[in-house]
């Protein structure tokens, strides 16, 4: 059974069709990528899954139960963690306290939550910076802090919204490595939105391509990038 099942989901913003009748399924244990040009509706799709918006039509099921009418905090408590495209750390809190906030969801005792936070910071190479203020971190560190904080809520499904955008190639490789490791070691299912094709090709087991809000292709990455519709939408008609 699929961990996440999205069926015929649509969302309009006063006439603009941001997501149009999109369906897909994310199998348990997959690294599933959603790609598409700017304005294709990727982040809107994410926000629909995370509960920020309710869809105008369609259903979203997570681990067998419907979640499309739930609030973001309820979706998170069900086991869906997310990061934000534009990172949102708690700037005046230390790095470790940022992660503790996430960990407190499953470990109500702050002491236990702090231990959990330190483990996660270790996994994401942020342990050394645990006492820095989150607001003072560099962008690559902030992106990893976003992931750490979401991981601390112990999700079954992790939604990563462009965690590699704006990173240098070495940083991108580091993030790819982390995502692969999380998926392999903690059997975490990952749904990621990504612009960086190099990263998508090396990390994703399955790819969904959005264009003008609609799904135009889905399949293994090598197959999807050869589809004419994908090349056209991504690189322009002239390139075909």
């Amino acid at each position, binding site marked *: 059974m699929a961990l996440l099942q999205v069926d015929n989901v649509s969302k309009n913003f006063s006439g603009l069709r941001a997501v149009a009748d999109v369906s897909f399924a994310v199998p348990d244990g997959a690294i599933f990528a959603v790609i598409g040009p700017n304005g294709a509706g990727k982040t809107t799709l994410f926000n629909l899954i*995370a509960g*920020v918006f309710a869809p105008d039509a369609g259903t979203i099921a997570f681990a067998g139960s419907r979640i499309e009418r739930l*609030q*973001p*905090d309820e979706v*998170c*408590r069900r086991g869906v963690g*997310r990061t*934000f495209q534009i990172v*949102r*750390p*708690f*700037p*005046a*809190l*230390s790095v470790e*306290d940022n992660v*503790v*906030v*996430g960990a*407190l*969801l499953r470990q*109500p*005792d*702050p*002491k236990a*939550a702090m231990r959990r936070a330190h483990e996660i910071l270790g996994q994401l190479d942020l342990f050394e910076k645990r*006492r*820095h*203020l989150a*607001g*003072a971190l560099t962008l690559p560190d902030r992106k990893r802090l976003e992931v750490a*904080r*979401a991981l*601390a*809520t112990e999700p079954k499904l992790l939604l990563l919204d462009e965690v590699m955008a704006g990173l240098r190639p070495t940083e991108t490789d580091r993030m790819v490595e982390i995502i692969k490791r999380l998926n392999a070691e903690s059997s975490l299912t990952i749904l990621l939105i990504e612009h960086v094709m190099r990263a998508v090709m090396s990390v994703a087991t399955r790819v969904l391509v959005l264009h003008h809000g609609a799904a135009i292709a889905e399949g293994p990455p090598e197959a999807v990038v050869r589809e004419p519709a994908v090349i056209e939408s991504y690189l322009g008609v002239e390139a075909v």
Partner: protein
Amino acid sequence: MIAHLIRDVPPRVFVWLAAVLAVLIAAPFVANDYQLTVLILILYFAYTGQAWNILMGFAGQLSLGHALYVGLGAYTTAALYVHFGIGPWVGMPVAILISVASGAIVGFLAFRFGVAGVYFAILTIAFAEFARIGFDHFTWVQGSSGLFLPVANYSHNDIIHLRGQPVMFYYVILALTVLAFVICRALLRSRVGYYWQAIREDEPAALALGIPTFRYKMYAIVISAGMTAPAGVFYAFYYNNLFPEQTFFIVRSIEIILGPVIGGVGTLFGPVIGAFLLTGLSETLQNVLTSLGFDTPGATRVFYGICLLLVVIILPHGIWPPIARLLRLDHRETPEA
């Protein structure tokens, strides 16, 4: 519980805290009547500042109407005492309950309907103003002509009925302030404290981490309002007279927030240090001016204004954070941006 509270407190901090507390306990033995009055005023503002700080400093919701909860606490216990002879300690739980209920109403209206930022602040002012105008016409508590508690010359201190000498009031407000400090520290170190700070820093991000932000904001306003009410009880029995025009006046609300703003919003020591500096220095200033023969009743207001201006320009996070860094109490490695 106690072990939880003192965890991670460096021994030298204990020594300092014990020394400060010892000085405060010993103060009445050396202070004259006037100095004792000033100390009572300082501790009163430290206490109310601490209670206000829960809502603004911890949870990030700016209340400019905390005089509402002071006033409700004051009027509730005073009315129970005047009409039914019910003592302040029995009246206090009732006062707290009424404050909690009105805090819950303000909070529900604001947080349920997404009223935030300056609009939340305006809503809190509006409720304090409703109370001011309402109590002006509330004849059971004598309306605008004021509610007076019976005053007699007390030869002994009656702690049960809070009737007696300033020294007794001093120890009562000192105990309340210490209690508020301990409660705030416990809150800040618990799950609710972390969640409040997350909401203050970024509410959508807090939601995404599974925090039911509406519920936690309600906790903040209800606890803050409930903690403010005992200050009103103290106010009523210490001053023995209550006028709606004074008790619920917006300036009372502003006075409550000046201490924590100058001391450091969101810190535990900020409200205490702010109250000491502001009230202590302004009274000293007033004294010096009077002794020099100047009759300047507005001097303290000007002083408040100058203090606020200096802090906003030079120390936008308040006086406490740099002190904490100096004393190496802040173990975060990068300074406040």
